[in-house]
């Protein structure tokens, strides 16, 4: 187990390095620079700013410096959006906001999606199954901003007399509702479909017949024997999805003006705030890597046959 963990950590560091390098070159490949705004500064000003922030040096030198700082835990400072504030500080300020919305969204997605998937599998071929299939297909194929906009339009005053929730995020409990619904709708639908498929597979296994022969009630059979065997694909999907959702639904945060990491991520790209782009990307990547590791450990709990240390 220790050997396994050491190997995983080394792999994680390599992955992060690759992510950092790729992001660095890609972001420098985008036309434009941080200094462009409505008022284009003179070339002399741009040169001066570039020199100040080290952007006049060759890319490879910049990357080397950045990675060197990164190893020491220094993510650099923002050069545009919150000038001269450390990137790490910005991330740590933004992330809790995103995480709060994200956790709520993922919790309701799991609590609704998994049981609904079980229900659809159990009632296979009935109208319940068909209804859930339609809802979930819509949920999976509809982009998040459409869901968000629809919710905003219908429940926040678009229809005369109906104004159940505030349209702008202000930190009150009521303002959490719509972003959470919008953010969790896609994972909920996806989870429900995933669970249904896996459940159908396990429901038809022989050990389900054994459980019935023992005299177990249907509910116990479904949740204890069938669902436990169907959880692997669900967990696989959930790991990275938790990371994505917690780091902010990029679009949903923009629609609801939530001051979270997701919205900042987009704005940092729009503004070419290079250190901020790097910081948020690496943070998200690290988070996904950690979640994947957790998922692998969860496999072991759910399925005792899986041996983490064996293989390759």
């Amino acid at each position: 187990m220790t050997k396994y963990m050491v190997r995983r950590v080394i792999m994680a560091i390599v992955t992060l390095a690759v992510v950092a390098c790729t992001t660095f070159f890609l972001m420098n490949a985008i036309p434009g620079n941080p200094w462009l705004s409505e008022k284009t500064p003179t070339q002399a000003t741009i040169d001066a700013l570039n020199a100040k922030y080290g952007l006049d040096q060759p890319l490879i030198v910049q990357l080397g410096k950045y990675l060197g700082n990164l190893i020491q835990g220094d993510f650099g400072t923002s050069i545009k959006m919150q000038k001269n504030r450390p990137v790490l500080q910005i991330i740590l300020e933004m992330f809790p906001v995103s995480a709060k919305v994200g956790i709520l969204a993922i919790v309701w997605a799991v609590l609704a999606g998994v049981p609904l998937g079980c229900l659809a599998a159990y009632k296979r071929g009935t109208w319940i199954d068909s209804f859930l299939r339609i809802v979930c297909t819509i949920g999976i194929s509809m982009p998040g901003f459409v869901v968000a906009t629809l919710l905003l339009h219908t429940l926040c005053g678009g229809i005369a007399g109906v104004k159940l929730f505030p349209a702008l995020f202000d930190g009150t409990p009521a303002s959490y509702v719509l972003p959470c619904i919008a953010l969790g709708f896609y994972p909920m639908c996806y989870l429900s479909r995933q669970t249904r498929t896996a459940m159908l597979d396990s429901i038809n296994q022989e050990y389900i017949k054994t459980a019935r022969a023992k005299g177990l009630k249907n509910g116990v059979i479904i949740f204890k024997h069938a669902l436990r065997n169907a959880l692997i694909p669900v967990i696989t999907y959930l790991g990275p999805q938790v990371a994505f959702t917690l780091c902010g639904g990029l679009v949903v945060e923009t629609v609801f003006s939530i001051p979270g990491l997701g919205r900042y991520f987009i704005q940092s790209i729009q503004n070419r705030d290079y250190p901020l782009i790097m910081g948020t990307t690496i943070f998200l990547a690290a988070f996904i890597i950690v979640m994947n590791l957790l998922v692998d450990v969860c496999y072991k709990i759910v399925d005792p046959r899986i041996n983490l240390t064996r293989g390759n």
Partner: protein
Amino acid sequence: MNKNDDILVSVEHLKKYFPVKGMKGPGVQAVEDISVFIRRGETLGLVGESGCGKTTLGRTILQLHQPTSGKIVYDGEVIYEGEDPWKPGANGVMQDVKVPKPRQANMLPYRRKMQIIFQDPSASLDPRMTVGEIIGEALDIHKLFESKTDRMDRIKELLSTVGLNTEHANRYPHEFSGGQQQRVGIARALAVNPEFIVCDEPISALDVSIQSQVVNMLEDMQKELGLTYLFIAHDLSVVRHISNRIGVMYLGTMVELAESYELNRNPMHPYTQTLLSAVPVPDPQLSRSRQRIILEGDIPSPMNPPTGCRFHTRCPHATEKCRGEVPEFKEYAPDHWAACHNL
């Protein structure tokens, strides 16, 4: 029926149809109008080629499948009775008619008395549970043991009864060999002290060397615990060895049922004769001199079975009558039943 009959399980006109999506009519007619009884303490063997409905019959008796119609009686108590929803319409096509809801007993108390050993041991044990949990769960459902130590003792006792080590209780099914897994399956079935066990091809998935061990173990258990078996297999020689009586199935129907020795000596139904002639004999001379009956054609689809006698499409003695009329399952000699027009 005989005078000393002490009948434990009986089924009358049992039918099990599986609906087929997009097809009108009854679908797959897996079990078609079977009536059979099993005496207390005996082993009834059930043979027939794959797809003839042996397994479905066994599982329907235990109500692991919902029966379509018929009657199932366990130890004098009716546990299922339902009217046939399929009646031949004007043009001979089966029509779905409204029938009253079948009478069904609460199965939980019967799950203690009727158990099943499945064919594929690796598939029939939940891979996420240890052997101890698998066996213990059955004890918990029926609340057989109050204290934890009694429960654990019972699990250990069961494991040693089937020839496994007591420390195997903490292992998972995949850590065992096929033969050991089947022993776990047997221990699991025995856990609740059942009277009647459906052995659904319990040895087909095992190596030949293990087969005899498991068969012998099943026989020993029967003697010790006074069990009644419905033993399903497609290997005639094994069934002949273990059974008191043997039933032969073809395409969902029972074609012949007789005492084991009698069936081998004096097979009445042409299908039984064919089956017996196909059993390998460990004697080259006898084997060469023997007449093998080879059937023409394939088994018809149970979705669209032949009219009249279901065997008439392949029977060497088929007549006009066989094509039109379903033969009655009758007792031709004492305890020797068959369904054929030519007897």
